[in-house]
């Protein structure tokens, strides 16, 4: 209950001002394609040099919270996920925007972000010591099985055909091997200098999601004058609350999945949204509506990616181990003030620690209020004529992929992957499974190599990967997931003719 004593500190004029600044700035930065939460926080670090420790952290914490939520804006309206966390948001969110329900989609996304986010921070406040042990429990073999669990999701994610889903997942897995392999330093498939550092995930995301859309919009613009404009339906905020209440299951699944996965160092944020989306699809009676603009999918994805924010800081705050790239940047923000995360932080600087955590709690709520306010305005983006829209999205795509690491190479990667994806989409493949392959490939590979090195020095491969409660549990879940997918595929047998398989 210690945290309550420090609530007052959040509301001093300077602190609260910084919180507002971080929240609003974070929403804007998050809504800009290419500026991932990690980038946004890194950009703000130099400003915290001049601030006191607690103030600096308030700014960084608020920015982290709201960039994750702000990423939903471009995911829904432009179909550009700002960060891997927002991939699942595009699936139903953008479909809703295309139906004219952009305002509703944005409102739902901010509301569910806030619910998930508040829950995640509460976990951080009350269960940190317990959770720290849990985060450490995941060694290489467990992370390997976790990545494999992610792979089992690939087939059923946003694809009419399991086979096509798996195929695009394989393309993603292959793309992930390009570049210097991180562990052994081997060079793989570097057929162009731009690929030396491998395929940057943000650049790939922008290309795979935005470019096919830009090409489609331009192509349509050639056929007619592009006057076809989507009418944006007004949507009362009360309606969004009601919709949330109707989808308690999605909120619950999203929040739970996000909190659990967010804890695991090195994996968390990237796949929380996708796994939550897939799980709520499997548990939903309306699973066929997923991908067509169904609020349930959007709610699950967004509550998950904000729920992960709090738990993702547990390894950093308790053990001084940054569990995600963003946490690593926050570590820099702490060190610059001479504060070492861990027992030092909570014992000697409780004011800093709790003011920071409290401000993330308040930040979630502020983020929701501002988000709801702009939702109606932002949704008007859909009224922009398609030809203009295409040009704007293309501009943002180039800007976003360049700014990731100030490299023109990433822009080439983005453009070529985008054009490839345009043709793949013509044949019924979709981008989400491909991206999941791209994310999971390196996690599975590096943990397998590391695990096998440890195993061969100790008790051998099979005992290392196949024994232990956590390993067996994860393997059981993997098997269950595969069986479930196979069962659903056989039961619903979606193809009745040759045309359907090709289409």
């Amino acid at each position, binding site marked *: 209950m210690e945290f309550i004593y420090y609530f007052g500190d959040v509301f001093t004029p300077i602190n609260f001002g910084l919180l507002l600044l971080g929240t609003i700035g974070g929403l804007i930065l998050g809504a800009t394609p290419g500026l991932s939460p990690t980038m946004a926080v890194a950009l703000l670090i130099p400003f915290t*040099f001049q601030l006191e420790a607690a103030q600096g952290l308030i700014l960084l914490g608020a920015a982290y919270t709201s960039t994750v939520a702000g990423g939903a804006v471009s995911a829904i309206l432009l179909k550009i996920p700002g960060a891997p966390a927002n991939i699942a948001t595009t699936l139903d969110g953008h479909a809703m925007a295309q139906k004219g329900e952009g305002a509703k989609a944005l409102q739902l996304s901010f509301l569910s972000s806030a619910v998930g986010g508040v829950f995640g921070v509460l976990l951080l406040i009350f269960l940190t010591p317990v959770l720290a042990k849990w985060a450490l429990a995941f*060694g290489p073999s467990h992370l390997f099985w976790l990545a494999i669990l992610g792979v089992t999701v690939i087939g059923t994610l946003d694809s009419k055909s399991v086979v096509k889903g798996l195929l695009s997942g394989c393309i993603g897995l292959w793309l992930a091997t390009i570049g210097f392999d991180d*562990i*052994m*330093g081997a060079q793989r498939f570097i057929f162009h200098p731009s690929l030396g550092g491998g395929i940057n995930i943000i650049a790939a995301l922008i290309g795979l999601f935005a470019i096919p859309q830009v090409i489609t919009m331009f192509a349509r613009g050639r056929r007619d004058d592009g006057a076809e404009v989507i009418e944006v339906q007004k949507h009362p905020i009360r309606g969004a609350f009601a919709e949330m209440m109707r989808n308690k299951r999605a909120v619950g699944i999203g929040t739970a999945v996000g909190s659990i996965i967010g804890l695991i160092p090195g994996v968390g944020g990237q796949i929380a949204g996708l796994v939550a989306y897939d799980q709520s699809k499997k548990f939903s009676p309306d699973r066929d509506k997923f991908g067509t603009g169904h609020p349930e999918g959007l709610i699950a994805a967004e509550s998950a990616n904000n729920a992960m924010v709090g738990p993702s800081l547990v390894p950093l705050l308790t053990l001084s181990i940054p569990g995600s790239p963003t946490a690593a940047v926050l570590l820099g923000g702490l060190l610059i003030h*001479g504060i070492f*995360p861990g027992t030092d932080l909570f014992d000697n600087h409780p004011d800093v620690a709790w003011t920071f955590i409290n401000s993330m709690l308040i930040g979630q709520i502020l983020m929701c209020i501002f988000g709801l306010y702009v939702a109606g305005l932002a949704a008007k983006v859909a009224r922009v004529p398609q030809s203009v829209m295409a040009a704007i999205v293309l501009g943002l795509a180039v800007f976003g992929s360049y700014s990731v690491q100030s490299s023109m190479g990433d822009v080439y990667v983005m453009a070529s992957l985008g054009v490839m994806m345009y043709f793949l989409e013509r044949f019924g493949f979709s981008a989400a499974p491909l991206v999941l392959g791209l994310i999971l490939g390196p996690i599975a590979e590096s943990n397998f190599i590391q695990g096998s090195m440890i195993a061969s020095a100790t008790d051998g491969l099979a005992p290392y990967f196949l024994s232990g409660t956590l390993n067996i549990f994860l393997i059981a879940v993997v098997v269950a997931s595969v069986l479930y997918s196979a069962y659903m595929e056989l039961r619903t047998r979606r193809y009745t003719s040759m045309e359907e398989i090709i289409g």
Partner: protein
Amino acid sequence: MKTLLAGAAMALMGLTGAALADGHANYPERPIMMMVSYGAGGATDFQARIVTMTAGNEDALGMPIAILNKPGAGGRVGWNWLATQAEADGYTLGAYNIPHFVAQSIKGGVQYSADSFEPIANWGADPAVLVVGADSEFNTLQDVVDFAKANPGKLTTSGAGLFVGHHIAALQMEKAGEMKMAYIPTKGGGAAAMKAVIAGDVMAGINNLSDAFRAAQAGNVKILAVADLERNAFLPDVPTMVESGLDVDNSSVNFRGVMVPKGTPQGIIDKLAATVPAMFENSRVAGKMKAGGSPMHIMTRDEVLAMWAAREETLKELLAGL
């Protein structure tokens, strides 16, 4: 954002009057960029931002230095870029990590070697240390050596990757102790390697002194030895490896500093070499570095040139058999 700031700063420059163009006497006339070949928030990036924060002062360069991150492939992407694509006009600097880039150039597959760059000055030296979990049965370096000798290839030891300081230290330990360890490189750098030690995934680990210092303060690990010539000010009680009977010198110490691409005009190199070490000595810089647990070690251009040459020789010998 950074380019915007730089642009604004340049516009201000224009107002203060055009500088005369006689040689390099007026260098720098516009903001300078420094490439860091690791991601934002990493130790190198974090330190680079601190040591360059006073560049704009009149007694330093008089112009701000903006950090440009080009991460990827353990630093290879950034250094490839600096060696082949960066303009050698004095407005593009780079941060170096020794022994990383020298070791990588010896192993091949990159477009640079120590001859592709001109050092300016060194700001930090982060020695590698041997850590074990807080509840480990090992209490001294000798315990670890005894175990490794009794169980060849069974001592799992994590480190940040191949051909980085941690790996070099492991190789030197094996050579000095005539033993075989199981070096486990991790993806995700020193933090992931440290996590492996704390969680008990591995029996020991080689990590940066600065990170290990924090972990030891938090009570998560024991630091058994420092791979350096002298004990470190942060850890006065921890012996060096030599003291503990293992003949390991400072070849694995992670030196960080500033360099420029080859071909940068000599006048500019001389000017930078004269001002940058003084800039590192600024008390604000020293204070922030100390607060962050980052050991400073300022060296001039001549000292760095000698250090690079010595490292290259040691590393060539050490890596020859791999």
